């Protein structure tokens, strides 16, 4: 499975796609990047006259790279069908420094376990200066359409 195959399998599109590039992936970890576009919709309201990337968007970016891209890779032996759905099941996140419009970030996600369709990872987010922006644990389920809960 190539990096492009992973990106092509993603179920997101603009304005809610937060993955540009996969840098590396293995059975144990994935690394990817995203650049926050200065004209992104959420900067208009967060905050008034002072655009800062919302924590929920940073978490979403970490989940898209760290759980969904990673999950697609880990499942590669099995078929990812159009009916496959990804659901964030829990997140525990600490944020250290803000991310401003136009910044390029790197997400590194390390597998804690992947069992019975549940992927749990330790995920970190860094800026171009390699400063730690956010660190936490994310879990998600990979579900089939007939088992949506």
């Amino acid at each position: 499975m190539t990096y492009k195959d992973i990106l092509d399998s993603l179920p997101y599109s603009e304005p809610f796609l937060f993955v540009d590039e996969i840098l590396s992936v293995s059975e144990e970890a994935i690394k990817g990047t995203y650049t926050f576009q200065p004209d992104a919709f959420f900067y208009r309201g967060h905050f008034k006259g002072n655009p800062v990337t919302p924590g929920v968007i940073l978490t979403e970016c970490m989940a898209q790279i760290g759980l969904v891209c990673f999950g697609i890779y880990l499942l590669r032996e099995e078929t990812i069908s159009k009916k496959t759905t990804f659901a964030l099941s829990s997140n525990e996140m600490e944020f250290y420094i803000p991310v401003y419009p136009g910044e390029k970030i790197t997400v590194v996600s390390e597998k804690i376990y992947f069992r019975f369709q549940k992927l749990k990872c330790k995920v970190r987010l860094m800026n171009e200066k390699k400063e730690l922006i956010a660190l936490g644990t994310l879990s998600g389920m990979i579900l089939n359409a007939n088992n949506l809960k």
Partner: protein
Amino acid sequence: MTSEEIYSQLQPIITTYLPEDVSINEINIESDLTRELNINSAHLVDIILDIEDAFNIEFKNDDIEKLRTVNDAVSLIKQKTL
């Protein structure tokens, strides 16, 4: 281990993952974990992993497909701890 002994160890594990609006009194041997106790699929996995640690056993994907009720869990544990 008897079914009663298994149940007494299993009940606190399930309790940990009960949604806030489901009372501990609603757990009984016949309870359907997802339909009646309203445990979501992610927490069902947590319960399975906690059972593995508590009873020192390992579940396979096939086992999980049979797991619907508290009693199914007790039977599976009984079978695996023989």
